[in-house]
C-alpha cells in the first residue's frame, strides 16, 4: 500500500504544499504541488523582505494546503506522514511552515519529519527520474544557495564539496539585472535578453578558477563588479549598453564555472551521475552547457523540470518519503526551525 506524504515548504518567498505517494518499490509519485509565491511583493525592494515573506506565508498556508488536497483528490485523513522544511532559510518564514506542519501532524496523529531544504532540492529529482543512483553529485543553484554536494544517501549522508564564498548565483543574476535595468528576479529576464546576445562578446572573469583557488568553491562577487565596471565604462563613453551581449557574456561566465567545477568534481570522484537543481537550474545556458559537458565526460545528467527546481512542497514531501522509508525516527513535536541548518543534517 502506498503511503501518502504531505510536504510543507516556507523557507523563503514560496509557500509550497506537496503531496506524494511513496510506493513499496521505493518510487515516489507526485500527486500535488501547489505553490503561492510572494515574489511580486518583494520586487520593488530588489530582494526578499523577510517580514513580508512571513506575513505572506501565514496568509497562504491553509489555502495552499487545501488546493493541494483538491488537486490530488485526497482528503486529509489519507495522510500518513507530514514533512516540513526545518532549515536553512529565513527564521520568520520557516517558523510559519514548521508551526503549521506540527499542527497538521498533531491533528492527523501522524509522524512529523523536519527536513533539510537543500536535500529536498536533490530529492525532488526522484519524482521525475526515479530512485537516485548513489553516490551521486548535486549542483544546487538558486537565489539563496550555490553548492556542490556529494550524496551517498539522500535520507542521511550528504557532504558538501564546495559552496559560494560570497554571493549565490541567483543573487548575482538579480544584481546584474538591476544594473541592466531589467526586472526582479533577474534570472528569467537575463536569460531572455541573452538569447539575442553573443556570449563571447565580453570576456568576464571566471571567479575562483586560479590554480591556488579552492577547487570546488564558487565566487560571483568579482564577476558582478566586473559587469558593473564594464557597463559604467560604456556609459561614460556615451555608448549604448549592449544589454543582450552583456547578459549573454555574464550568463556564460556563470554557467561555465558552475558546470566546469561540477563535472570536474564528478570525474575526480569517479561519480557517474550529476543532479542540477534549484531555481537557477532552469537557466537555458546552464542546462545546455551542463548537457554538453556531461555528455563529453560520460556523466548522466539529471535535470528536474523547471517547476520542480524552484522551491516547492513536493520536494519536501519527496525527501520526507525517503527519510520515512529509511526507517528514521520522526522529529519531536518541540522541533524548532533552524535558519542555519547545515547541509549534512538531512533530518532534524
Amino acid at each position, binding site marked *: 500500500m502506498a503511503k501518502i506524504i504531505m510536504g510543507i515548504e516556507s523557507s523563503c518567498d514560496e509557500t509550497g504544499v506537496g503531496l506524494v505517494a511513496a510506493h513499496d518499490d521505493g518510487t515516489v509519485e507526485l500527486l500535488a504541488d501547489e505553490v503561492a509565491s510572494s515574489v511580486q511583493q518583494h520586487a*520593488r*525592494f*530588489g530582494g526578499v*523582505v523577510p*517580514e*513580508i515573506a*512571513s*506575513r505572506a*506565508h*501565514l496568509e497562504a*498556508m*491553509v489555502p495552499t*494546503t*487545501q488546493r493541494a488536497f483538491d488537486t490530488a483528490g485526497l482528503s*486529509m485523513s489519507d495522510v500518513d506522514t507530514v514533512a516540513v522544511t526545518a532549515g536553512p532559510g529565513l*527564521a*520568520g518564514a520557516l*517558523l*510559519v511552515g*514548521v*508551526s*503549521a506542519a*506540527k*499542527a*497538521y501532524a*498533531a*491533528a*492527523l496523529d501522524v509522524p512529523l519529519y523536519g527536513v533539510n531544504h537543500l536535500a529536498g532540492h536533490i530529492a525532488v529529482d526522484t519524482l521525475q527520474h526515479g530512485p537516485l543512483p548513489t553516490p551521486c553529485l548535486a549542483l544546487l543553484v538558486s537565489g539563496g544557495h550555490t553548492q556542490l554536494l556529494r550524496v551517498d544517501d539522500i535520507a542521511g549522508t550528504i557532504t558538501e564539496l564546495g559552496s559560494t564564498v560570497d554571493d549565490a548565483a541567483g543573487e548575482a543574476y538579480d544584481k546584474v539585472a*538591476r*544594473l541592466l535595468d531589467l526586472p526582479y528576479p533577474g534570472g528569467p529576464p537575463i536569460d531572455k535578453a541573452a538569447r539575442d546576445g553573443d556570449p563571447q562578446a565580453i570576456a568576464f572573469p571566471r571567479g575562483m578558477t586560479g590554480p591556488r583557488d579552492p577547487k570546488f568553491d564558487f565566487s560571483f562577487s568579482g564577476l558582478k*563588479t566586473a559587469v*558593473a*565596471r564594464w557597463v*559604467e*565604462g560604456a556609459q561614460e563613453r556615451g555608448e549604448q549598453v549592449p544589454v543582450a551581449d552583456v547578459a549573454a557574456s555574464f550568463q556564460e561566465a556563470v554557467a561555465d564555472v558552475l558546470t566546469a567545477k561540477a563535472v570536474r568534481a564528478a570525474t575526480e570522484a569517479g561519480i557517474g551521475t550529476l543532479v542540477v537543481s534549484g531555481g537557477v537550474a532552469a537557466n537555458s545556458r546552464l542546462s545546455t552547457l551542463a548537457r554538453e559537458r556531461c555528455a563529453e565526460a560520460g556523466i548522466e545528467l539529471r535535470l528536474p523540470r523547471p517547476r520542480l527546481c524552484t522551491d516547492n512542497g513536493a520536494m519536501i514531501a519527496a525527501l520526507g518519503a525517503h527519510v520515512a522509508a529509511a526507517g528514521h525516527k520522526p522529529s519531536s*513535536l*518541540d*522541533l*524548532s*526551525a533552524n535558519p542555519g541548518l547545515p547541509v549534512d543534517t538531512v533530518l532534524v
Partner: protein
Amino acid sequence: MLILALDTATPAVTAGIVRLSGPAGTTGDTEAGDTEAARAVAGGTDANSAAADGATAVAAARPVVEQVAARVTVDPRAHGELLTPHLLEATADAGITLADLGAVAVGTGPGPYTGLRAGLVTGAALAHSLGVPAYPVCTLDAIAAGPACPALVVTDARRREVYWATYDASGARTDGPHVGSRAEVPETAGHVADHEQPTPEGVVRAAAAEILTAREPGPLTPLYLRRPHAAEPTPRKRVTA
C-alpha cells in the same frame, strides 16, 4: 462545547482547553453539570458585574466559561517550539482528544514577536484539519476579559513602544488597539493590566458571544498595527570612481 484557546502575542506561550456553554436555559446543549459550573463561574465574576443581584440572575445572562486545562510558559523565543506540545499536554490533561474540540480560539495580537504567527498558523491548521471553526480574538480583549475587568490594557510592543486599549465597565472595548509610546496612553481611574498575558479562559470569554451565535468567524488575521520594516533600494552606487 470544548474549545482550544491559543495565544502567542505576549512573551507567554499560552494554550488551554476551555468549556463554553450558553447562559443556562438559553441553549439546548447545556448539560446538567454546566448549571452548577455556571453558578460557580458567575459567582466568581460578581466583581465584574455592575449589577450582580444574585448568582442565578447573572448565570442566566452570561455564557458559562470554565477553564479545564492550561499550559503556559513565559519565553518569547519558544513560541514555535512549545505551542504544539503545550496544546497536546493541555488536551491530555483535560482527558480529551483533539477530535473532541468544537472550535479553536486564537489571539491575533497585537504582538511584536514573530511567534505571533506561530499561534495563528497553528490555530488555522488545526481548525482546517479538524473541520472546526477558528475564532480570532484581539489579545488585549482576552486580557481585559479576566476577572478584574480592567479599564486599560497595556502590552509590550518592543522598540520602546506599547500596545494599548481601553474598556468600559461592561468590558466593551472603547479605544484601541493602538501602538505608540507610553506618553500616548491615556490616564485611567480603573484597573490597569500592564504587561499581563491572557489566560485561555480570557481568550474564550472574549470570543464567547461570537462562538455561541455560531456565526461564521472572520479570518485569523494578525493585528500587526505596524507596516513591515522594509526600505526600497537607494540608487545604485557606482563601482568605478
